[in-house]
């Protein structure tokens, strides 16, 4: 970030030029110190690890290039399944959580049963560990032998379980966003003649969405790695594939490979979240330098 004024009409004074030169020197110094200390730290860490007695064995069973190459096709296939599950789960969560959040903000005694139901739902699924939801949905519902649903694959039930759990979290985030929009905004919208639904859609939700975007992005990142849990139902995703490869080769490298792939998958979103949060902060603190 540069704070140097861009007033081209007038050349800066001697004093200001001196200050700018000083700032440049300061910046160069800080960068140099950062580079040197990073290199020093990396070298020390590297030699410390290499000199541990077990390093050879660990390297062989966790970081074996051969094992990684062998496991690659299966793990990458599995990851593709994770991505597809993620895709449908995100759509499902968006719909269900928006519905839940809207229902929870409805006023009036008529809606009491709906509100109570939605509140009960969020309490239940926010409290219950995802893995238990996965077991109950993945093994419980097929056990009912419902017509037409009996033959659905494990990843289908995994997606449903993810939607059930994450909708509870996301709806709470959305609700907090909706309630953070000042009542005077609703008042102004209603006084223009906009009805309840239009006020929500045109005035409240757009403002709420802005406020909760960083939190939603975080939930998305969390979900990106939780899709790996569908492997407990037997779906052959990246985690399950790595497990199969590990068992076959007596080598843990496939797990490391799958883990790294998940990190790569999440990285763009993590960066984007950081960037967006920083941008919001800049906007909110416009005009102040502290």
């Amino acid at each position, binding site marked *: 970030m540069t704070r140097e004024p861009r007033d081209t009409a007038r050349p800066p004074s001697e004093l200001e030029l001196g200050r700018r030169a000083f700032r440049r020197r300061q910046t160069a110094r800080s960068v140099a110190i950062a580079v040197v200390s990073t290199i020093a730290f990396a070298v020390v860490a590297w030699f410390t690890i290499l000199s541990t007695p077990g390093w050879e064995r660990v390297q062989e069973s966790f970081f074996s290039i051969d094992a990684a190459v062998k496991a690659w096709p299966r793990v990458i296939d599995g990851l593709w399944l994770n991505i597809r599950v993620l895709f449908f789960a995100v759509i499902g969560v968006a719909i269900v959580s928006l519905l839940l959040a809207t229902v929870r903000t409805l006023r009036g005694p008529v809606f009491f049963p709906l509100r109570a139901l939605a509140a009960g739902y969020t309490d239940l699924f926010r409290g219950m560990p995802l893995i238990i939801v996965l077991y109950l949905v993945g093994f419980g519902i097929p056990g009912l032998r419902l017509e037409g649903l009996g033959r659905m694959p494990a990843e289908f039930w995994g997606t449903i379980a993810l939607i059930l759990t994450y909708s509870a979290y996301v709806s709470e985030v959305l609700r907090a966003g909706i309630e953070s929009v000042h009542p*005077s*905004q609703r*008042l*102004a*919208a*209603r*006084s*223009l*003649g*906009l*009805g309840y639904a*239009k006020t929500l859609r*045109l*005035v409240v939700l*757009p*403002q709420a969405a*802005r406020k909760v975007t960083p939190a939603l992005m975080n939930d998305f990142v969390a979900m990106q790695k939780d899709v790996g849990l569908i492997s407990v139902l037997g779906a052959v995703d990246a985690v399950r594939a790595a497990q199969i490869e590990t068992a076959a080769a007596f080598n843990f490298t496939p797990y490391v490979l799958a883990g790294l792939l998940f990190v790569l998958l999440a990285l763009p979103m993590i960066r984007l979240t950081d960037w967006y949060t920083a941008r919001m902060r800049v906007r909110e603190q416009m005009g102040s330098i502290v």
Partner: protein
Amino acid sequence: MSARETVLQLRDIHKSFGDTPVLRGIDLTVTSHQVVALIGASGSGKSTLLRTINLLEPIDDGQILLRGEDISDPRVKADAVRARIGVVFQAFNLFPHLTVLDNVTLASRHVFRRARAEAEARGMELLEQIGLADKATEYPDRLSGGQQQRTAIARALATDPELLLLDEVTSALDPELVGEVLDAVRQLGESGTTIVMATHEMAFARDVADHVVFLDRGVIEEEGPPAKLFWTPSSPRTREFLARFLA
């Protein structure tokens, strides 16, 4: 000017908050092209009265007639009534996520379902009129208080309301910004908009209003043309109030 017809008629309006009576039998008639100023001490019920007219606050008793139609009837669609009345609040309440022009055109487009081009043409015309055409694409947080309040006035006017309610539109502004907003209101009054406004700006009420209503503890203590009310008030309470303000 066309013949004067009754735009708004209040008949014996009562309103309490809990056990506190705030409006205690208000009767008032507003005719077309009239500018009515509501004055009175803080807490006398001016804002409450404006909110009941716009159906943002239900009344306990009485009748509100808008062009002869009883809008206090619960069967009347409140949204449709509100669309016919423009309101400007003390705190502007512009929508921060919309540009100035989008703020102004929101109701025309989404309540009156006018085409975007048509709504924006009318919106630009209004912004031109209040001197904000060059700010049309800015967001409200980039405007000064006076500019925000003038935007709010344009927003209230965008659907050509039959009645404009202004609630102390200058009291949140720095003194040097008050003038530009009052000028905008003055201009509206001269162009024939029917206005009911609550105000603490006595000099302004005296200059611009055709009819001044002094509200005192929930009743109309005195009303009349500004010259009469400000120079020869008949009620001692009015005299007392004015003395405090004009001192």
